[in-house]
């Protein structure tokens, strides 16, 4: 429904020269499979990246300025 609304914005624009905007719809099936693989890869990467002492890592990386 929301996708149609976006598409309608472009189609119903009062300016005839308004840029063309194509609708986008995600096919969620393959995306969910992909998400599962991504999660698995991510957790493995976390295992490799995490230090033994997270608090010590955070202390060593402190910001002494601060924007």
């Amino acid at each position: 429904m929301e996708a149609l609304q976006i598409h309608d914005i472009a189609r119903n624009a009062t300016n005839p020269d308004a840029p063309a905007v194509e609708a986008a719809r995600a096919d969620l099936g393959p995306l969910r499979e992909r998400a599962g693989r991504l999660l698995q890869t991510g957790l493995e990467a976390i295992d490799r990246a995490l230090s033994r002492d997270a608090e010590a890592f955070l202390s060593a990386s402190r910001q002494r300025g601060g924007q």
Partner: protein
Amino acid sequence: MASRVFGIETEYAVSQPDASSDGIASEPGEVVMQQARVRLPHLAVEGGAGIFLTNASRLYRDVGGHVELATCEVDSPDDLVRYAAAGDTIVAKLAEEISSRRRGAGAVVISKCNVDYLQPGVCWAAHESYCHRADLRRLPALLIPHLVSRIIYCGAGGLNPPCPGIQPTLSPRAHIFCKAVSNSTTSDRGIYNTREEPLCGDGHQRLHVICGDSLSSQHALWLKVATTAIVVAMIEAGIDPTGGIHLKHPVAALHAFALDPYFRTKAELTNGPPVTAIEIQRSYLQSAIQHGHHPAMPPWTEQVCQRWAQTLELLGQGPAAIEGMFDWSIKYPLLLAHARRRGVDPQSLPHWNQCLTSLRDHLRSKAMPERLSADLILRHPGPLAEHVGFLGGYLAEHGLRWPQVRDVLGLRDELCEIDMRFGQVYPPGLFAALEENLRHRVVEVSSTAGCDGDPRTSPPKSTRARHRGAAVRRYAGQGHVTCDWDHVRNGGRVLDLSDPRGQGARWKITSREHPRTTPPAGGPVPPAEMLRLLRDIFDGGVARGDSDRAYDLLREVAPSAVELIHENSPARPSNDAEAAANFEVLIRLARAQSRRGCSDEALAALDRASRMRPANSPGQGQGGGIDFRLACEYVAVHRQRALVPAGGELNRWIDAADRARSGQNIPPAQWAAFRGHKAYALCRAGRHEEARDLLMPLCETESADIPARIRARNLAELGDISRALGQDDQAVAYLDRAERLQTRCELFEDLADYTLTCRFKLAPRSRGSALLLRRIKQAQHALNCRVGLIRSLLLEARFRPSRFLSTRRRRTILTLAEEIPDLMSCPTMTHILENWACWQGGQADPADPNPTNPDPFWGV
């Protein structure tokens, strides 16, 4: 179509988790900047910190010591992504070089992260700059709804920093903003920042957006800058892009939107029913589509609208549709999955957050340290025992028990580390590990489409950055050429870059028109203005080793005073003010000429100054004799004369200064500088203990009355004295302090000539000495410190001997020395060249009166 010019700044967290005390570097940010100065062709920033690179970006250390890279100005989101990626690569490469050199110990870790979880409210910035000519009064109201709602695609993800438990968020920095509009960037931050620092001219303004996150996803970064640039373009064109949306509580809306990954949260409006973040974004998109062909819009508007619309559609379809696309949508499921495998159910987190917040508030009410630990919570009896018992019932109602808090708080630290590791640029972090599986790419970052070559080394083809990049490439290594966003300065010539698009950029031979250095046009510079220029421009330049430029400046602003040294008749200034200004010019002339290796000219300037000392000036010597200040200036010139000063003249002037100070109230800075010179002379005479006793009291305390330049020199001197006394540990400690101070204040000539050279002498044949000597030479070469460079070349020939290079080295030294009057008349120089075989062979000085304990440096 109109061009839009913009850029971003990224603050990198730099740490050295396994740093060793090798004495070479003290702060990781400094290490990275030192490496950059050595490895990257650059120009120094005029009057500021850091360097401009050949791709026209600026690299510097910001307050707090972290490294920051500001991209060059670009005019398309594609280029913005390319130059941001180039910045990451440049910084990562520097870290890699440092780490490989140190082989593990002291390896540098560099991250693009957003908040310091140990200090709620403290963060690393990712600021955006947009050039515009919009009405500043209209900007906040028309821009704030966009800034508040855009986090649904350009939030970095992470945890809500003020929450003592675990509260995932779309944007960790969103929670540290507490005002809608503010000028501050470090506290009381506003969603709309009012900083007025255009960094350009011709009526252009610079919108400084500080509420964004540091991002790894190209898609998120591209959309962040592209949509914001378009919104600013619409406002500049007089269009209201909000579609009539006016948030009632922008800060509350920002915080609430950040905590809702499903975008169901609605924000109250002043003029209508509540709206979601997606609805606000749709409203802006609709305006952009409606006005897409307005002349004020950039040529890539249609492309942006297309991607913007598709993004909003996907967001509307739920989290699965955007997985692997934006920083937060990659990070969010990882954080929750990691919690689950650590045995913490994400559904339990709101209950833990409620209890931990209650405990934190309890500590706060008792003015106790607020950081919660499992030990503190579980201690019985303890300061929280009663409150913990009271909340235990609530936890039990949800199947939870207090002993589990140890797992929850341990998990929190791990999730914070995961967030910081996500955007790590060196060693490559989690985002890099996942990149092949992500859907974030929108441009080919190594493409040279928008630039004249590799974006890491070349500027874009458009905007003023192309002129700046060309100037950096052309003048890199010439210390007298400096750079800023809106100009490049080469002595008296200035490249005007006041137009951000680079139109009208040209060299002008009128540095006098520049507001910072400018004497008024027409006629001589008034004495008061002359004194200001000397103080503001000359002293800063010469202190940083820019002696050639300082000398040029004197000749520009005070040609008649400079010429005084060539006249035979006494000066006849028209009034006391003019006499005082001329006196100060001559003193500066002596300093510049002394550092340039022209001591005879320096002494002539001082002789002239001594004859025209204003009658009523402070520190005047008794009975018309030489005063302490002038005597000190003579001491300084003689001390720096050639490779080794002539002891007789130096000591004569030290005695004169000692006599002149009798009964005088000497300013602390002059007194400290004099003691440094006197300690050097004592050291040369073998009276090391006296030298140490003279300097040590000065170096044990830090007086604000003594400039950093003098404090650092004295520390280096004391380091060298300690070395001569065989106290190497103390020497390293003093030299470390000197190096920190000189690096922080960018006193690179002194750093190379004094501190690093003294450090080299500690272990001239060690494995690290070759690297150190290379660093010294590169700094001296870049700053055009000719006497110092020749000293380093001589030390290299002696301690890094090479039969193959012997003749070439001697020839190089001779060639360089021919340009320096002091060296052509230096007895030590002649002595070394006449005994080149001994010098290079590491043998004792044939003329050393003490052959049983020879000076390995022959006094150099």
